[in-house]
């Protein structure tokens, strides 16, 4: 066991896979010598060589498009896109090719590849550096979308993502990249994609979140506890495929659901969860499902960002309103 941050845990997962599988290749903007702007790949080029861990020219469509070619011809590329908002130049390759190659070729060519990028706000960054595009990618048939919230999960999910036969969008919560430290096993382990985790059991209301919002929810849970509210907190861990069973079982128990996420509210993962609550647990609902999510606006720059970001007290406020409905 070692104490690791999310950055260190992902680095450790990549290191393990590079070590045991020569088909794993890592590249992205600044991913080689520097180890990425957040240092997630730090030291990997030195250890595994420039042929396997390297800097890519700046062109996201090319990073993803070439990775697909590699995946179709026997490699397992793990590519880094520098920021959430810089994944869009690669959108066409992701949607029109990566997600479809298996289907298009009737299984002859598969796309075992991982597209990593840091996502989310709260770091006082420039435009395009604070976005949560999980709904965009989860809407695309053929992709899997993973978002860890702890160092342990980040390591186990990254190993599962690299070993997946399907392409995986791996969104890393940059706001808590180094904010959480946790004992993580040094050995290889994986966490199955598509399984949520009940972090706290409770009886009054179900709160569903993922990524960096988990920590904010945990702060809200302290306030809820003081107010005598028993909250069941679920960490989705995978956005697609969604672990409906865990969510529905929890709603059946509590009768109420509050969804917390940073992305704009409309047409979001929150909307999907509300649909599931209605489709699968309609008769158990005792209050309208509630989304505590971003405005349908651009994430403001640093001065305005606190107004946009979901704070623990706002989460508590909505939890209390839902419970008292």
């Amino acid at each position, binding site marked *: 066991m070692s104490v690791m941050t999310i950055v260190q845990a992902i680095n450790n997962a990549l290191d393990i896979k590079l070590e045991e599988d020569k088909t794993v290749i890592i590249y992205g903007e600044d991913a080689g010598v520097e180890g990425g702007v957040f240092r997630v790949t730090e030291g990997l080029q030195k250890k595994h060589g420039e042929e396997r861990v390297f800097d890519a020219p700046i062109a996201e469509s*090319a990073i993803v498009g070439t990775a697909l*070619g590699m995946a179709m011809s026997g490699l397992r590329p793990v590519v880094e896109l520098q920021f959430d908002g810089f994944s869009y130049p690669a959108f*066409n390759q992701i949607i*029109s090719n990566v997600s479809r190659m*298996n289907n298009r*070729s*009737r299984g002859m060519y598969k796309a075992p590849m991982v597209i990593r990028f840091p996502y989310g706000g709260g770091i006082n960054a420039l435009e395009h550096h604070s976005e949560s595009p999980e709904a965009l990618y989860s809407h695309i048939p*053929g992709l899997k979308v993973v978002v860890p919230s702890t160092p342990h999960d980040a390591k186990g999910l990254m190993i599962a993502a690299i070993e997946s*036969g399907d392409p995986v969008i791996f969104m890393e919560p940059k706001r808590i990249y180094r904010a959480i430290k946790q004992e993580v096993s040094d050995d290889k382990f994986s966490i199955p994609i598509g399984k949520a985790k009940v972090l706290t059991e409770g009886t009054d209301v179900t709160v569903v979140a993922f990524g960096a919002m988990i920590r904010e929810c945990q702060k809200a849970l302290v306030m809820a506890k003081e107010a005598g509210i028993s909250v069941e907190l679920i960490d989705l861990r995978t956005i697609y495929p969604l672990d409906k069973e865990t969510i529905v079982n929890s709603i059946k128990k509590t009768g109420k659901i509050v969804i917390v996420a940073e992305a704009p509210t409309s047409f979001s993962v929150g909307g999907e969860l509300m649909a599931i609550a209605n489709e699968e647990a309609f008769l158990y609902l005792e209050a309208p499902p509630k989304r505590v999510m971003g405005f349908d606006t651009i994430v403001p720059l640093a001065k305005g960002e606190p107004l946009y970001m979901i704070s623990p007290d706002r989460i508590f406020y909505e939890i209390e309103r839902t419970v008292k409905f």
Partner: protein
Amino acid sequence: MIFNDYNPLEDKIFRVIDNDGKVINKEYMPNLDDETIIQAYKHMLFFRTADEMAVSFQRQGRMYTYPPCVGHEAIHAAAGMNMREQDWLVPAFREVGIMLLKGVTMKEIFLYYMGNEEGSNFKKANHVTPISISIGSQYLHATGIGYSVKYQKKDEIVFTSIGDGGTSEGDFSEALNFGGNWKVPVIYTIQNNQYAISVPVKNQTNAINLAVKSVGFGIPGVKVDGNDFFAMYAIYKEAVEYAKAGKGAVLIEALTYRKGAHTTSDDPTKYRTKEEELEWSKTDPMLRLKKYMDHKGIWKENEEELIEKYKLEVDKQFVEAENMPPYKLDDVFQHMYVDMPDDLRKQKADYEQFLTWKESKR
């Protein structure tokens, strides 16, 4: 080296025979025996026969669409004849001839244009990727495959192709930039057939030609007469040697003319003149190769009989494609994921339930 002698910055064009089939460039005339030349012509004849039949099947309402390749035969034959079994073909969609020489069948091509993904599952062809409709995106896949074969130290060369319109896409430039930087064994071809649907190449770029785009990416580039089989053969041979020597990627602009429509849904009379078509018809790749063979007196086959034989073969494959078993619900779902999510299983099961209900009402 052809790449050195025909500098695209000077807008030179590499050509070996003229429109009358006379050798005008002895230095670079490829050393091919008569049998190989005859075989090349037969390939081209088969491509054109199959192509014309495909258009006619579409006109009969037996196939949804088809992008005719007529006029591109020299490029296709020369590329295919320079490819080995282990080499990769990463096509767009107007590469049917090359695909056939790589082992793809007309049955598969027909299946695809009848609207069946099974037509992209090339069962007998090694290392041919599916037809790519998203313009330009295949250039990047070829580049990645190039990295892959280089990294795995495999003796494989990657051939990819794009149209003149595709060179305006970002993926074209990004691919050449990455491919040049990575020194991948990729032969990038531009089939410049003068039109992207209705838009003439002069409306795509202010560059003096398309081969010149190689200069900015630090790779050799050359403009070739794509209707000259010998020129195309010679350039591919040189490109293959260049790649085998580990020198990296090259860009070949093959100048040709799309004699047919963009697809069967297109009407070229709206945007080009009969005079222009007539002018280009003098450069027809089959006509020129035939004239060359006639000068040499090596063509002794009965062309009409050959065409009849090819027609029977193509017809047989078309009927096989038409008689494919009906598309099943399974076919919609089964290749979306290696590891199918429960949601998809449930969506399929729900639909099966509906089908059972529908059946019970009959």
